[in-house]
């Protein structure tokens, strides 16, 4: 299943780059080890069972709208001087790549005979996806969400409720994604006999980083084939945003052995890396253990986790998936920060040039790709547009002061002048 990944994949204990100096592993309470072992075995058996993989592919196709198209953003490309291709994960059911992961994990949950799922969520996209998968498969669902996030993503809370999930607002710690994960783990340790934890990103203890990657890797497998079929070449560079890193590892995996394809992950630079108010975990480069894996962690000199900052709830996480840490460590992928302002500019630009409103998370990838375009005129850059921006309209409204624009045109709005490039031929 992952033989071709040998150079970049984990060993059987979940270590990327070996236990002594690498990343990953399983730093977990003994009480959860049996469940993680059970999950590992069930997952390996399922992936080796053609009926499971066929079911997964069928559900993705019939229910989730996968494969998503690969789209040449022509007006944007013309403007930036490079060929920009967008992998349209925003068109998936529930509006993001996350549906791939949850349908895979929920299908596995059914196979394992468990009746309840729990999940953590930051922006709410994974929570909505989990609630959706739970409804689809008839599973009970509880979603943990930091109370800071339930406020800034109220629409997604409403979606989860409508889908029949229970949403628990978490007030402990910094009341964001990391605390939602803590609370979900506390639930799981008490409910593990009948409950599956649908982990939302390619992080956490073994087997989650590998398991989530395998359920998301269709993004890159499809994009690579689509790029070859539609344009006859592989991209020169690929780009994705990185919070925990599920959409990024989902895109990257198919390209890791293509030595000529440069791989870029863009982390949330928040107010700017130098301000200290960011979520650029890999760029900061401090090793530690968080949520069950050795990885890069935002932490103080005593190893206490530092609160991350980003305009994007989905990237606002002080850890990162261990395989990304490994890819950075061995130099196969480059990770750079993108500020809130750059991301919001990219969001506006894509909206105005292509009629696509991206999620703020995905706008980080796009902003990074626009930077790459400047350095790579004429080259092909493939960007994972991991989610749509509907959920972020509150953020956009506030950031661009959109409500005020009505009264006196652009003078009150933070948006620039309307796009000046030529219309589409």
């Amino acid at each position, binding site marked *: 299943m992952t033989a071709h990944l040998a150079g970049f994949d984990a060993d059987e204990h979940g270590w990327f780059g070996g236990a002594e100096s690498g990343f990953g592993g399983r*730093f977990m*309470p003994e*009480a959860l080890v049996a469940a993680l072992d059970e999950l590992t075995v069930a997952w390996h058996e399922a992936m080796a069972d053609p009926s499971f993989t066929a079911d997964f592919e069928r559900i993705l196709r019939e229910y989730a709208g996968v494969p998503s198209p690969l789209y040449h953003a022509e007006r944007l490309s013309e403007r930036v001087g490079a060929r920009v291709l967008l992998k349209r994960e925003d068109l998936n059911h529930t509006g993001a790549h996350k549906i791939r992961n949850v349908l895979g994990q929920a299908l596995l949950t059914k196979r394992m005979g468990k009746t309840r799922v729990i999940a953590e969520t930051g922006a709410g996209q994974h929570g909505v996806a989990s609630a959706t998968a739970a409804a689809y498969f008839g599973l009970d669902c509880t979603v943990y969400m930091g109370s800071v996030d339930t406020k800034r993503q109220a629409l997604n809370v409403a979606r989860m409720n409508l889908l029949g999930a229970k949403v628990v607002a978490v007030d402990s710690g910094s009341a964001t994604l990391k605390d939602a994960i803590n609370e979900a783990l506390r639930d799981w340790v008490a409910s593990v006999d009948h409950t599956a934890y649908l982990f939302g990103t390619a992080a956490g203890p073994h087997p989650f980083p590998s398991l989530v990657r395998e359920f998301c890797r269709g993004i890159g497998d499809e994009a690579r084939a689509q790029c070859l079929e539609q344009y006859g070449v592989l991209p020169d560079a690929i780009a994705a945003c990185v919070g925990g890193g599920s959409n990024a590892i989902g895109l990257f995996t198919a390209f890791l052995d293509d030595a000529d394809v440069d791989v870029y992950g863009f982390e949330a630079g928040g107010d700017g890396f130098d301000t200290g108010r960011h979520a650029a975990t890999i760029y900061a480069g401090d090793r530690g253990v968080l949520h069950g894996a050795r990885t890069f962690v935002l932490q103080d000199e005593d190893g*206490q986790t530092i609160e991350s900052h980003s305009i994007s709830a989905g990237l606002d996480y002080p850890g990162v998936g261990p395989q990304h840490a490994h890819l950075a460590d061995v130099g196969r992928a480059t990770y750079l920060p993108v500020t809130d302002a750059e991301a919001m500019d990219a969001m506006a630009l894509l909206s105005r040039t292509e009629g696509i409103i991206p999620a703020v998370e995905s706008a980080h990838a796009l902003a990074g790709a626009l930077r790459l375009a400047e350095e790579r005129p004429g080259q092909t850059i493939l960007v994972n547009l991991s989610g749509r921006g509907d959920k972020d309209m509150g953020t956009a409204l506030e950031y661009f002061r959109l409500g005020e624009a009505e009264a006196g045109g652009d003078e009150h709005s933070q948006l620039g002048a309307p796009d000046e490039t030529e219309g589409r031929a």
Partner: protein
Amino acid sequence: MSSSIAFAKAKTEGRAALVGYLPAGFPDVAGGIEAMRTLVDAGCDVIEIGLPYSDPVMDGPTIQAAAQQALDRGVRTKDVLRTVEAVAATGTPTLVMTYWNPVEKYGVERFARDLASAGGAGLITPDITPDADPSWSRAADEHDLDKVYLVAPSSTDERIAMTTAACRGFVYATAVMGVTGTRTSTSDLAGPLVARTKAAIAQQGIDLPVGVGLGVSNGAQAAEIAAKDGIGADGVIVGSAFVRTLLDHPDEPGEGLRALARLTEDLARGVRRA
């Protein structure tokens, strides 16, 4: 001084040991030390000092609240070691219970060395298992420190055997599936877990006491866990109930310490009643 010495002493007295937990720096560093000395004076045989951590996934609301208070007031790892030194000076074996990242950040070898020179007995590590990372085991062996790992009702017999073989001091049996916090009744999972753990220890021919934790809040529960014809624990571990007592007296530290002493005495009678 290894915690096994206190377990052995309790055994010669025909009773279980009482193990008391409080986080360092709660309500502040000096107050924390005073509270732990109160536990010692009132009858605890072993002290566990919690290292407050930002992401305590195994702790319920009570211990979370105390640890958060300590962190908000700026407690540092060096304050925890200072607390160890002050408590160990009473002659009572003193362990640190800590999530792994603060140790890794401090430096595993350096932590072991500084813990040993502060007089600490060793570490209880709730989020690493013996097979998760070999670095602690190496450092603990180097400095002759206790390695207390946890077993749980969900542990397989193979994992229990692997864990008891790796422990020094005692093995910590978490008697319920869930986070820390007091419970009104003791778990029916405790008996089978202690029996399986003792079977593994007997098969290995080693001398390793079994401490049982999670949920105990009074002498009657302590007696039930320690009862030789019942669950048969070698030690009863109490944490959240002590923390709760201090949380309940935020503005009257003197009364808080007196209540702490009364609770400790009740528990100490409990382990002697068995």
